[in-house]
């Protein structure tokens, strides 16, 4: 009887096959889990990068809006400054009151 025949008859090869299948499944499981974890990690990192990029863009947008806002405030202030208002009111025919009469309204 050859050794192989003996192994077959005593179930040794069967046990080895079973063990190998188990190892293969384990390895496959590890690969799948690793792949899933790596996928999740990459997704999180990608999302992180995307969010950070958006954040950076929004920071810059906010700064740009702030600049526009301040610029407009300055422009409004220029248009409503005393010399401009004086010029405009003179053009509209306004002038300082020559006499002011006060009327006392008693409590009702």
């Amino acid at each position: 009887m050859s050794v192989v025949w003996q192994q077959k008859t005593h179930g040794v090869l069967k046990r080895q096959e079973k063990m190998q299948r188990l190892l293969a499944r384990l390895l496959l499981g590890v690969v799948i889990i690793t792949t899933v974890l790596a996928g999740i990690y990459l997704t999180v990192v990608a999302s992180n990068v995307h969010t950070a990029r958006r954040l950076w863009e929004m920071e810059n947008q906010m700064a740009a809006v702030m600049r526009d806002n301040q610029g407009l405030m300055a422009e409004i202030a220029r248009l409503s400054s005393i010399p401009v208002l004086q010029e405009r009111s003179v053009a509209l025919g306004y002038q300082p009151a020559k006499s002011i009469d006060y009327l006392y309204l008693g409590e009702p």
Partner: protein
Amino acid sequence: MLHGPDARLRLITVLLIAALLPILGQLVRLQVLEHSQYQNEAETLVSRQYSLPEAPWGVIMDRNGDLLVGNVPVYNVGAEINLITDTMMAASVLAPLLNRPEEELLATLTLTQSAQTLQWRPLTNRVPAETAQKLRELGWSWITLSPTWERYYAEGAMACHTLGFVNASGMGYGVQAFQLRFLRGDRVQRVGPVSGDTSPLPDELLNDNLTPYPGTDLRLTIDRTIQAFVEGVLDQAIVDYKAAGGTIIVMNPRTGEILAVASRPNYEPHRYPEYMEKGQESIFRDPAVSIPYEPGSVFKVITVAAAYDSGRADMNWTYNDLEKLEYGGASIRNSDGAAYGQQGLQGILDYSLNVGAATLSTQVLGADLFYKYVRAFGFGQTTGIELTGEAAGIVHLPTDWDWNDSHLATNSFGQGIAVTPLQMAVAISAVANDGVMMEPRIVLERQYADGRIVPIPARELGRPISAETAHVVAEMMAHSVEKIAKAAQVPGYRVAGKSGTAQIPTSGGYDPQQVIVSYAGFGPVPNPQVVVLVNLERPDVPAHMRWGMHIAAPVFQKVISRVLILMGVPPSDVRAAQ
């Protein structure tokens, strides 16, 4: 040699392991043994200083919310010169836009042979947004635009001393320098890993809050309309009387709020570098708070108030006004050199009698009591206003090394004592406010970027005199206006006031020609709503006109008559009817 598949398989395994071993070895060397060295190198490669756009400084508004100081966006322009393809063309296009000579720009943009690596050079600073837009439209990626801010003064030079400015190193004048820690916007500048366009990498952005925080806005007590009117009156007075300078202060005696404060000479705050280049830094000092002067006869109000409040002199008190009074080696005479005979407290104010004031300080009050009141009125001390460079003035006390007995006599009519216009206005406001002296205020409230509003409460500086004394002195001052100072009278309103004419001290005496004329008063009486102080320096008019009564009183009248209307204070008869 190699028989069977198992043997060949073993050989392949051995070869593979042998091939993998050097790789593993290198991995261990790079990742374990030399890990820190390579990490440092990597960090050096990607770490750069980066900055987020600078947040704007807080704006400054008047009491009604009108903008006085704002911000406009400007840009610093630079170039990565090793990326330029046509330097000649670039220089010719940029020269008119950046307002720089073409040859100079060409030299800046030209890459030197010794430096072939990335080179950035600044081209110009603070170009307006319109120019920045034109530069963007050129589409040249090598041009860098860094946004920053420039202060914008909406009313030009108006209230320049109050608003002031701050230079790049944080030094300056006015309320901006005083409130710098609130006004200044946040600037985020850090060193960390950056991407190719020098924006921070994700971890840097997500691990920290980098949003710059804008500065705090200030709402001032200044009323823009009153301020503009007062500045116009001051300019006109300086032209009319050919004065070298002047100050007008308008304040609310009830709260200490400064409604307007104007001084000449003035300046345009945004052009401060030009003044500095010309060596004109002295123009930045605010005469209202930083430059003491001898107040002259306006100070008699303090002397009379002290005498009455101490109980040493009442309305029946009299003295014999002779031609002169000798005291401490000084010979005190009235301004016209005349003797006025029997006079009381009212006469001292009506005729501005130096002899009478000196009699009160030397014979009625004495040094201890007189200077107790002088200190109580705040002279010789800063008022605490939120402006830089406030002077305390000069008050000689009997305990001082440079004390002279004559000081007691001369100080009583405002000579030999130096006060700031603000101190004088604050002291007069105590008379107008039932004896209560309020701390002068320039900031009404702070408005934080997160929406919080923090009002600055009114604070009492002290009560130098009783309410009764204040009413009596106010009545005397109002009587003085009705009887003597017709130029200060306001139709429809009862006002109180006192003029002053002070010689200007020089080394070794007083200038025989030059004077500072002033007028301080308030109205309406009773229940005053506003205190006005007018100072005009070195008016160039005929000698007989060179008096506070002739020059400063009409200016006071012009200011208070309009300010009462602007404040909506009804005339005295309407108030009486109420």
